């Protein structure tokens, strides 16, 4: 309800100021429905002031325009993404790159909680979070329960490099494609991985839970 009121306010305000307003990004004015330009521009400016990446917001608006979505739908999508970018940045830290924040927003959208992103940052140290967080979001997208995916990606964070994360995701998806359930697929691959790491001190594998 609150969100709808805010949306109505933004659209109403846009109708008043639209003629005078100059969109910060020319792409918005050229492609997005006129009544959506000002609200989106306001969201983009707010994100910029907060130090968040703004290109993903523009991209989402352009995606909506390209898919001929309504102005209301586009504004709502951009606003939602802005909230996710902010939550991801807060969870992963102020020094996170734009790519990391964007991937973090995807993971939050997929069902990860901000605490999981924070835990990943702590485990990875100065290493980039982009690929682990993207793998987390991708695993959830192919049917792995969010808590299981979070546990797996977090367990692997200390010893895995990006290439190993990529291979891990591919193997899980391949097993799922061959008919294994997402939970059993990730359980088997995690077990194999942790067995390979037995010589190195790594945390024990989480027990997969039924969805």
């Amino acid at each position, binding site marked *: 309800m609150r969100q709808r009121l805010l949306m109505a306010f933004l659209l109403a305000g846009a109708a008043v100021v639209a003629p005078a307003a100059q969109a910060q990004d020319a792409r918005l004015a050229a492609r997005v429905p006129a009544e959506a330009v000002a609200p989106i521009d306001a969201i983009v400016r707010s994100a910029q002031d907060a130090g968040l990446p703004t290109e993903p917001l523009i991209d989402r608006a352009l995606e909506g325009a390209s898919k001929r979505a309504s102005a209301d739908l586009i504004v709502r999508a951009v606003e939602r993404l802005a909230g996710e970018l902010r939550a991801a940045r807060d969870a992963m830290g102020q020094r996170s790159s734009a790519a990391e924040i964007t991937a973090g927003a995807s993971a939050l959208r997929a069902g990860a909680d901000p605490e999981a992103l924070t835990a990943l940052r702590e485990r990875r140290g100065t290493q980039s979070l982009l690929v682990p967080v*993207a793998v987390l*979001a991708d695993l959830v997208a192919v049917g792995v329960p969010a808590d299981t995916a979070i546990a797996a990606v977090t367990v692997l964070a200390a010893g895995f490099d990006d*290439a190993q994360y990529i291979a891990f*995701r591919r193997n899980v998806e391949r097993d799922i494609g061959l008919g294994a359930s997402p939970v059993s697929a990730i359980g088997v691959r995690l077990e194999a991985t942790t067995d390979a790491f037995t010589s190195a001190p790594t945390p024990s594998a989480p027990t997969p839970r039924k969805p």
Partner: protein
Amino acid sequence: MSERDRRLEEAITRLREPVDVDPALQERVMRAVRTTPAPRRWVRPVWAAAAWIRRPRTVRVSPLQGLAAAAVLAAVWVGVGVVRPGATPPGTPDLGVASAGNAVQFVIVAPDADAVALVGDFNDWRGDVTPMSRAEGNGVWSVTVPLEPGRYRYAFLVDGGLWVSDPSAPPAPDDEFERPGSVVTVGET
């Protein structure tokens, strides 16, 4: 010694006696061998294979192996002879996450399409920026795009109006705009 034993002993003794062999025997045998045509080599393996196929045998399969075999058979049944927009040609590497520093190749099979474009976060979702090329003689469309590290949403736009996701990449989650899409991530390291 019984009569039976006596006859048996006599037979054994005769068999132990040296046999007179015609000195020309070896020559005659070898001549006969040379004049006999050699058997065709494939006949024996074919008969052996036929016999192997006909022979009943017990096969032990675990439930997981059975499931995998069923999945493969189902995939073959669905895939053979059916080429549809969105199918990935054999040998296409799966997308989703790519290593840094590599241009990313996007591929789709759309045999009936007149034009296919790649649209996504990397080209402002414009259908006129990244047209895909069709390989001669088949319906495989592809394009290679250099991408900076990041996570991108994208889709294929077939004939300017049909949105198709990439079957070799994870689906874009929760698409608010109700059109299929995919995601690709290019690593930073």
